[in-house]
């Protein structure tokens, strides 16, 4: 029961015990991972931090490369500068600020998480959660409109491809003859379906 209650979105109807668990496990994992995937500054050696920072600063004269990946002279100088500031005890944030002051905010390889740039980070979350919601509602609606009785597992066990092919074929024949059931009737919920599942 526990798996049914929180998800009013999907409705209380007969989800197999594992269903919500599996689908929401995916969603929750995705969301959790996005929040814990960074390593704390103090766990890294200065050289590791230097490389990490180099991957977060753009090379000002190259097209779309970070200073980590570029062999331009200015990138070499900037990498040396990063190391110099680290040795002097600066935090990552201070070093980034140092470069932003000199080169503008486009020196950062990813937008900051504040002000207008927050949009860059919020929209993906909205896309993922909204999209997931739409996918679930779509499945729910498609399920509601089921006219066929869901077969029992015993029936499924014996379901062979030939049966499947035949239904496809018959549906095709129906369509070709122009007697395919209207979608209106298809979308009518079927009482026995509800009872069964």
């Amino acid at each position, binding site marked *: 029961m526990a798996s049914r209650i929180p998800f009013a979105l999907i409705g209380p109807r007969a989800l197999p015990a594992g269903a919500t668990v599996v689908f929401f496990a995916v969603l929750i994992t995705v969301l959790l991972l996005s929040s814990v995937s960074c390593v704390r500054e103090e766990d890294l050696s200065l*050289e590791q931090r230097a490389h990490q920072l180099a991957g977060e600063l753009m090379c000002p004269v190259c*097209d779309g490369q*970070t200073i980590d990946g570029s062999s331009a002279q200015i990138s070499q100088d900037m990498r040396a500068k990063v190391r110099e500031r680290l040795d002097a005890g600066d935090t990552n944030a201070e070093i980034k600020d140092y470069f932003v002051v000199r080169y503008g*905010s486009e020196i950062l390889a*990813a*937008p900051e998480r504040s002000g207008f740039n927050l949009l860059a980070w919020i929209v993906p979350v909205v896309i993922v959660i909204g*999209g997931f919601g739409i996918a679930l509602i779509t499945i729910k609606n498609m399920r509601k409109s089921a006219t066929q009785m869901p077969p029992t597992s015993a029936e499924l066990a014996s*379901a*062979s491809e030939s049966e499947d092919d035949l239904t496809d074929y018959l549906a095709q024949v129906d369509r070709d003859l122009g007697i395919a059931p209207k979608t209106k009737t298809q979308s009518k919920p079927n009482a026995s379906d509800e009872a069964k599942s």
Partner: protein
Amino acid sequence: MAELGFMALLLGFALSAYSAVGAIVGERKGKAELVVSARRALYMTTLTVTVASVALIYAFVQNDLSIAYVANHSNTLMDRAFVWVAFYAGNEGSLLYILLTLSIISALAIWFAPKRLARSMPWTIAILAINQLFYFGVLTFVASPFELLDTVPVDGRGINPLLTHPGMFSHPPLLMGGLIAITIPFAFVSGALIAGSYGDDWIDVARVSAILGWGVLGAGMLLGAWWAYTILGWGGYWAWDPIENVALMPWLVMTAFIHSIMVQKRRGMFRMWNVALLNTGFVLAQLGMFINRGGPVVSVHSFAASALGVIFLTFMLASLVFAFALFLWRMPQLKSDRAMESFMSREASFLVNNFLFLAVMAVTLWGVLFPLFSDLARDVSVSVSAPYFDRVNGPVLLGIVVMMGIGPLLPWRKASARSLKQWFIWPTVIGVITITVLVALGVQRPVAIFAFGVVAFVATSILEEWWRGTAARYHAGDNWAIAWWRLVNGNRPRHGGYIVHISILMLGLGIIGTNFYQQRTDGALALGESLVIDNYRIEYVANGDSSRPDRIAKWAEMTVYSIDPDDYSQEIQLSNAQGSSGFTLRDSQTRPNDELIDRIETWHGFYLDFNMASVRSGIRSTPVEDLYVIPRDFLSDGRISLAVSINPLAWWLWASGPFFIIGTMVAVWPQVAVERKPARKERLGSSEGES
């Protein structure tokens, strides 16, 4: 030659225009012979593009510097083997290459199209002809590769040095070919929609052509990554550069399509959805063409900005309007035959998989467009690069891998609790064991450990199904290899898909290893000095000059020793105290447990005309880890400045390639009628998960 090439293109322009008009008028007026003539005209365009392409290649071979394009992309020093690369090294040539591909695959598609599509073929021909017409128009009137120079230069500019690598023989052509190939399924499906054939006649031809294009595009991206890794000399392989992103986006959408088309094939569902996916893929491919050609975003890949940007933008918007107007017009006729029966069904899992692919696509598109948006909205420039995409896409990509394990285990329609338990138990157990073992071994980075667990879960699910199916056949009397092959043969789309899934898992291993466990250090060495990182000592032993008139270049040779850290405990302590990951040794004495394991050569060149450095990194690759040595620079005091990294599991990135290609081939290989019998047996036997 220039005149011949130009005339061929002009003729092709006329032929494709005739083909488009002929097909439409013939269909409307019911004149079959006009349609046949239009079809033949489309075969002929292939001939004209081939003539134009041969003319351009011939001009390169002859080094005909009176042609501007040749003078810009070749010179007398260029190794003639790179003529093929020079052919598509610039805007005009790459467009000609794209048109060549489009015309050849159009001709093949029309030739092999099944008879039952006869009603919609005129429209398919017209759509293909209009696409060709666009490229012919651009090549004839806007960006002709046969433009002549007023004065013939003494020598050409030469080929872009970054392109002189074996990977360049295949990466750009596969990538461009894969993008343009989306036109084929799009033309078939749009043709069917216009003609009002709502049946599923187009499923097989759309599926096969979509998978072929998708496979080519995927192989192209993988080769691009390999090229970046071995030649760009930054130790990475994927930078989320805008041009990489615009190739990735249609690939993601087509991945969703080739999955959900199976639902339509098997269950008669998702019709609307499939058409919408294909339309999206086609429009995104046009977006790719646009951004590649003077588009508004900064990229290492962009061709020189040109007036082409506006033209391609217009064509992209026209495709968008056409595709979705057609979709909305015909939407009422595209309803599903059946309803979804359960969340725990393969249909539902395909829908979730589709959603995840589209989410990565949409998020990537947002990241690509955000700098433009920021510029327009508030006149502030921002950069959106790898750190952003890693963070926002990483979790969703992992979610896709999770679904890759779950989806195929679910049967069509509805799973029973018993079958779920039966099929999920081993993958889950192995996944959990993997995580436990890694934790027990003291491996760092929880996210990566979880990801390894997911990979183990998915791998087990595939191997378990193969094991059961193969064992059933083995007991029926086949030997193991034949039993497995019969299993695969029995349902090629499914098992080809599994082979591709395995390649994705290998790719996943490489991505996790390199992203989470890379070690790096920098140092400058004089001859005889060594750099030590982890269990390697890299000694700089020799160098030499390999300059040519157009470049200043040096090579450097290093020997690689595997070491025992105990021999170096003092130095290691010292370097840890300084916060370094490695250290330099001034003497060249080997210590007791040093063992010579490899010799590697690196190369650093500077091209004067291009003001561009090009390097070859020294790579020692093993399935466990790569030792990767980048020669940053030769310093004026005679030392060499190196960046050395250890990239765990990087080998698997490239090992995945053959599996990806083989799996794709298996999935599309035509199913012969004789093959049906084993397929039946297999379904009854084990693979439906309900036995």
